[in-house]
């Protein structure tokens, strides 16, 4: 390959797109490198027309000239898979950012690409297969321990056909490039299996027996989500919301508390500061499930808003490919993409440069199908080994003007299983998380009893109706019965839906505690109370709310908690009424 490189000249530069006149053979989505000075900058073919090919450039195009040469690689845009991905921080093209910083300092110099995995590190390998075994791509020949994760070494997924194992490395320490197995293909040719392999990011990994229906809840420790709008393991959800409604805070809370084995965070076109919080804080936070650092189960793909736009487009694919790879180990992975709107905007920018006929709000016509096929990479699957693995995808959406009628939100709503709509109204009133309890929905089963949940939802609905009505007819014109429903819905909102993310106890409510809490709140909702006047009713519910909220900050079943529960009982008994 080195001897006959395919080199073609640039004939046009327009922003981050270059046009190349070619004479050889060119593949759609092939990776190429443009040379400017000493730097080689990465590009991807996105359209071929006549004798011209248009390429999106993953870095700044400053300084490129007509006549400069572009080298084509014949490879699709791929990521490297293997042990050592966990705890890493990559840009959209899988360049490790901490290592880049060591090499080029404060700024991201263009044209520097580093290996994604550490080639020095030694891993303790244990073989599972033996010489003579017949294997196909995806079959496991052994494993290494990556933290608590059993990381299987596979016959590369992109190979085709059947192979015979000729030899497998003995148990011991190896680096990622060492030969772990020698195989012979059907034609009698020899190949080496190492710990790493490559996979093109835009193609899903489909090496599994069947896709299953996601039904088991993925506990996020967020009460509004797990109880009211649950997300299933292997399901999809989206969190659209205007700026300042708390999308990112919610995503961080989910990424910290969700019961997943591996969490891939794709910070796509958002603020660098938010990523820095993850980078600096996660190593010191503990994963309650394993007792290890939260970083040990995380991979961060970070292509913030000021980093090149085309790499932003690639970053969500990079992230989902890594999630798919860990799913193949029989793990539950969670992919959080913040924000998919920025990804869609990157598509829009390229589409504009290609002068394609624009769809709604200048987004390309293929936007919907791209969003759909991205979310379809989620799912619960039964692997060929009989284990199950899953990818849950949560995407935040940043609709222009906070208006959910825009193309990205609408295309997303069509394909997700749960919609957690954040509202400006709630965030202005500091009711966090600002997930709107009336507009949001979920198709997945909740952790509490369905009839009780429906009852609670009913209270919220009627409470909101009464509130609307009160704005028209005033409090004095409202019947006591309706007024109490309104107070109950406010009570439910304040003591159950609202949750203080920044508090260690209130911020994460495990499923068991949610059930207990929900039962307590449910009892208040269904109880009958008697009051002579509205002021007394308001006072009672304010007091009750205070007791409940204080208890939310206490350790479950501590002495303090039990004392508080006694106070609650006492207060309730002063007003409760036995129905005839």
């Amino acid at each position, binding site marked *: 390959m080195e001897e006959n490189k395919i080199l073609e000249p640039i004939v046009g530069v*327009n922003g981050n797109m270059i046009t190349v006149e070619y004479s050889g053979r060119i593949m759609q989505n092939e990776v190429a490198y443009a040379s400017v000075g000493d730097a080689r900058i990465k590009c991807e073919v996105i359209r071929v027309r006549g004798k011209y090919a248009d390429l999106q450039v993953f870095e700044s195009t400053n300084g490129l000239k*007509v*006549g400069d040469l572009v080298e084509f690689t014949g490879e699709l845009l791929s990521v490297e898979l293997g042990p050592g991905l966990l705890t890493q921080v990559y840009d959209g093209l899988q360049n490790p950012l901490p290592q880049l910083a060591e090499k080029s300092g*404060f700024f991201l110099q263009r044209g520097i690409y580093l290996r994604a995995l550490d080639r020095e590190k030694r891993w303790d390998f244990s073989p599972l297969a033996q010489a003579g075994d017949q294997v196909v791509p995806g079959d496991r020949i052994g494993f290494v321990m990556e933290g608590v994760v059993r990381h299987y070494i596979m016959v590369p997924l992109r190979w085709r056909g059947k192979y015979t194992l000729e030899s497998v490395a003995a148990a011991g320490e190896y680096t990622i490039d060492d030969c772990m197995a020698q195989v012979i293909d059907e034609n009698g040719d020899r190949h080496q299996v190492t710990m790493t392999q490559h996979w093109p990011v835009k193609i899903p990994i489909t090496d599994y027996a069947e896709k299953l229906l996601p039904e088991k809840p993925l506990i996020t420790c967020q009460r509004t989500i797990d109880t009211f709008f649950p997300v299933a393991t292997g399901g999809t959800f989206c969190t659209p919301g205007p700026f300042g409604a708390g999308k990112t805070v919610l995503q961080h809370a989910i990424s910290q508390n969700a019961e997943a084995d591996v969490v891939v965070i794709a910070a796509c076109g958002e603020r660098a500061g938010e990523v820095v919080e993850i980078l600096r804080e996660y190593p010191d936070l503990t994963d309650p499930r394993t007792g290890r650092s939260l970083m040990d189960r995380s991979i961060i793909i970070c292509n913030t808003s000021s980093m090149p736009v085309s790499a932003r487009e690639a970053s969500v694919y990079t992230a989902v490919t890594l999630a798919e790879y860990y799913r193949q180990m029989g793990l539950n992975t969670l992919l959080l993409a913040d924000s998919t709107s920025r990804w869609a905007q990157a598509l829009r920018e390229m589409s504009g440069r290609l002068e394609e006929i624009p769809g709604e709000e200048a987004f390309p016509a293929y936007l919907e199908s791209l969003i759909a096929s991205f979310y379809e990479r989620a799912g619960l699957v039964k692997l060929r080994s009989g284990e199950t693995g899953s990818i849950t995808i949560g995407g935040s959406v940043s609709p222009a003007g*906070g208006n959910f009628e825009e193309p990205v939100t609408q295309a997303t709503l069509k394909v997700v299983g749960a919609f957690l709509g954040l509202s400006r109204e709630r965030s202005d009133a*500091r009711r966090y998380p600002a997930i709107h309890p009336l507009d949001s929905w979920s198709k997945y089963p909740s952790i509490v009893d369905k009839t009780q949940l429906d009852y609670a939802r009913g209270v919220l609905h009627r409470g909101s109706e009464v509130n609307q009505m009160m704005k028209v007819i005033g409090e004095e014109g409202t019947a006591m019965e309706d007024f109490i429903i309104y107070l109950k819905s406010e009570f439910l909102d304040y003591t159950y839906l609202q949750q203080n993310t920044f508090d260690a106890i209130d911020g994460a409510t495990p499923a068991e505690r949610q059930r207990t809490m929900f039962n307590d709140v449910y009892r208040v909702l269904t109880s009958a109370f008697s009051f002579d006047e509205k002021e007394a009713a*308001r006072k009672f519910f304010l007091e009750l709310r205070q007791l409940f909220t204080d208890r939310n900050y206490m350790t479950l079943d501590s002495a303090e908690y039990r004392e508080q529960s006694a106070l609650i009982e006492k207060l309730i008994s002063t007003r409760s009424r036995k129905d005839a």
Partner: protein
Amino acid sequence: MRKVYHKIIKISGNVITVEAEGAAYNELAEVSSARGVSLAQVIRLDGNQVSLQVFSGARGISTGDQIRFLGREMSVSGSEALLGRVFNGRGLPRDNRPEVTDEATPIGAPSVNPAKRIIPRNMIRTNIPMIDVFNTLVESQKLPIFSVAGEPYNELLARIALQAEVDVIILGGMGLKYDDYLIFKRTLDEHGALGRTVMFIHTAADPVVECLMVPDMSLAVAESYALKGKRVLVLLTDMTNFADALKEIAVTMEQIPATRGYPGDLYSQLAGRYEKAVDFDSAGSITILAVTTMPGDDVTHPVPDNTGYITEGQFYLKGGRIEPFGSLSRLKQQVNGRTRSDHRAIMDAMIRLFSDYRSTLEKQSMGFRMSAWDEKLLKYGKRFENEMMDLSVNIPLEKALDLGWEILADCFDRNEVGIKTDLIEEFWPER
């Protein structure tokens, strides 16, 4: 000797197209016309056709004028000699003093590696309760003031700049009224801050294209100071004019507009500037305060909308006051846990009650009877507006928190404010 090209084949808006060989993308060129020599920048290459945006405007350029490519990109000096100086949108002196050319730094340098950033940790005190208590400003934050024409946003900007403890102030003015420029200059001078200020001023009378360079130059200078360990505050006013200049060029280049004529890459363009705000690992910091005027007070207009998604919050200036709703500092959590134990509780409780006050006002305006609770809210709301929101209030954070408790205790009972009981016990004023 660089080659000179003559063949201008298109002049449209402020963009000219010339037939030339070997021009590089983003390179600078000189256009010599009857009006003198002007700088221009390459914005598209298509075969041998090179499109350039002309900084002083294309007016008066003829098809036979000369174009000479300079083989370098736009740069600005990053030296200490800039302090106390005023420059225009091309980086040339506006104050009749000599040019500064040493320590040339390219503008629009690549973005900072997120791995080299640190979590912001220092509060910037402004003595404005609506900022210090409710939406604390933090060193290295990027924050716009959303406002409409006629509001005192430039005054607010100047006041924050003077009260903030920073080493260097950089003012980038885009489409600034000449009067406003003079007011800025006078205010900074009166407070003895001119000596630590650098100004890049594009006034409303200057050619539009020059406005495009102002943020990049201001931020390039800020970056070189920050790398020397300085804490820099960059003031940019008004970013809506910058966005409009982008729109003008995009339309001239026949790009497909996304919303209301603005180009599809508006978000990336704005982000490229705002993301320069940074707290460096083992060096200085850059804090950006910008003004974004909202045409028609419409926060869903593409410029404020995109800005809101990029910046770490916004101050919403309306009726001469910073509105508690719509205003937000995303970084306040980084610092307000370490100021005083009651800070967060006061912040949340007061805003929640103020929101209730607003709904009571609505009820009142519809003529409903006010309950005892409503009366309490009305009393509270009035005091909050007069003693907290008014911009003339100038008290340190601790005083403002005490005042908050004072107001709450005056208007409500202990269990009505929704604050955790242990804090109530510690701070509730005895009377």
